[in-house]
């Protein structure tokens, strides 16, 4: 068994007396496609924030690419190849689309401005956003903002991408566009954790599905097996009686 790319052991997070996350164990292999689902407030984003370093202190331990992440600032995690997108797109509003993607390149191993610009343009081409390179983020549509988030993540040359509700609020065809991008990225070797409420996308994309409920992991397996589990159906999709 090879060393997993990501190993979370007993990860927990409290906010005062509220337990947002408890005893989460999760391994992820290189190039794996993992779907993470759960109702609102189940701890998915808290877990992502623990991985990304937004919450520097939490219970348990997280190792990524052979490095213990405890106490590591978010920018150092990004440099290790751990990239994330945000639930609501968070572009650098005062910069052009191209400059938005240049920032991660300049700070993660491409200090030469001309080279960083060329690489940023290549990242924009990967997400079909190159023709919009000179625009400001406020001139982009919702799906284009999602693609910009992905381009900024791709610029980190990640070995793991956490896509946090990258399809929220998108139309059927726009979801397909983002799915195609994630498949392309995964085909190039990047492991992806997809956190999503759009079940069609999660089931189509994920080769493994994990379910969080009330801060705990209640299921971990293939999408088919997990979605057939009665406790998942009850907790996430609602009880048959309720339906």
């Amino acid at each position, binding site marked *: 068994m090879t060393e997993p790319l990501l190993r979370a052991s007993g990860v927990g997070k409290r906010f005062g007396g509220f337990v947002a996350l408890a005893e989460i164990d999760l391994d992820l292999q290189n190039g794996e496609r993992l779907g993470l689902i759960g109702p609102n407030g189940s701890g998915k984003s808290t877990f992502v924030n623990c991985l*990304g*370093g*937004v919450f520097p202190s939490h219970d348990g331990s997280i190792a990524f690419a052979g490095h213990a992440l405890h106490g590591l*600032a*978010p*920018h150092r995690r*990004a*440099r290790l190849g751990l*990239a*994330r997108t*945000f639930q609501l797109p*968070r*572009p*650098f*509003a*005062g*910069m052009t689309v*191209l*400059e938005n993607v*240049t*920032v*991660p390149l*300049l*700070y*993660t191993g491409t*200090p030469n*401005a*001309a*080279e*960083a*610009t*060329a*690489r940023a*343009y*290549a990242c924009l*081409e990967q997400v079909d956003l*190159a023709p919009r*390179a*000179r625009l400001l983020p406020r001139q982009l549509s919702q799906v284009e903002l999602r693609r910009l988030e992905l381009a*900024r993540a791709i*610029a*980190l040359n990640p070995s793991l991408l956490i896509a946090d509700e990258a399809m929220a609020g998108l139309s059927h065809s726009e979801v397909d566009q983002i799915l195609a991008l994630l498949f392309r990225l995964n085909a190039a070797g990047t492991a992806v954790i997809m956190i999503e409420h759009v079940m069609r996308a999660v089931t189509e994309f994920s080769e493994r599905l994990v379910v969080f409920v009330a801060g705990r992991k209640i299921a971990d397996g293939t999408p088919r097996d997990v979605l057939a589990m009665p406790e998942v159906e009850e907790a996430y999709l609602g009880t048959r009686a309720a339906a």
Partner: protein
Amino acid sequence: MSEAALAAPPGLAAPPRGGHAVFWGGAALLAVALIAALRLLHNDYAWFAGYFILQYVVLASAWNLLGGYAGYVNFGAAGFMAAGAYTTIVLRKALGLDLLPCIAAAACVSGLLGLGMGWLTLRLRGVYFAIATLSLAVVLHTIIVNWDYVGGSRGAYVVPSRDTAPFVTHGEYVFVVMLVLAVLAVGIARMVEKSRLGLGLAAIRDDERAAEAAGVPTLRLKLIATTLSGALMGVAGAPLPHYSAYLNPEAAFSLAYGVNAIAMPLIGGAGTWAGPVIGALLLGTLQQAATVMISSALNLLVVGCVLVAFVALAPHGIIGLFRGARR
């Protein structure tokens, strides 16, 4: 990523980084022309009025490094300015040093003060950070008022040096010193803006959490900005005792410095190197005109009126107006 993918994309240039030689050359020519023009006037007041305006070019450019580029509003500009001024007084009294070494020392003292302030407060954001910087100025003011060595609340005199050659008068000497400092401050701000550091600070201003996720070492960049900004504010204040020959805490910690340091970049266009220069030239000249023609008590009223007008009509300042017209 293939080499083909790395070829320069059509119609897209690298972020502008050049033009430094043109800037420095142009600034030097402008400075020489300004000195020559003021010499022709044969009026000592012109040197002092010019100094007054140029000190605000330095102060506003310094404030802009943190407030404009990184979005962290420093209400304690007067504290840094006073730290520079009192460094001059201490070194003059203790070692008899002339102005130029005092300026270098003021940059070090205020830079360290900025670094310390940043270390203590940069985990705060928004209004909490602003209040913390204001508190720093209040603490420094209290220390100076109770420090007899620098004159306490009575103030201290600095007897200007009689030997100012090759300058004709003492007024010309302090003006030229401040002119050089202003060119340096604007040049440094311009280099920061067009550098990797500038882009990182802009990312912090736009969205700090997203900047961290994009690999930007936010705390380190902010500490660099507070240090550089503090050092330049101290530099702006260092010649003050030589300019006025007397300094007391009320003058050194004047509300006018704190207000102008913020108002000038906002009116000119915060986050750009030219904005604070335009704001300082505009507001500085207006205040000098008000002082001469009406009353010095009206200075802050002028600043307040112009600031209110710009916040209402042009929130991105004069530079923003031009950019808006171009788009």
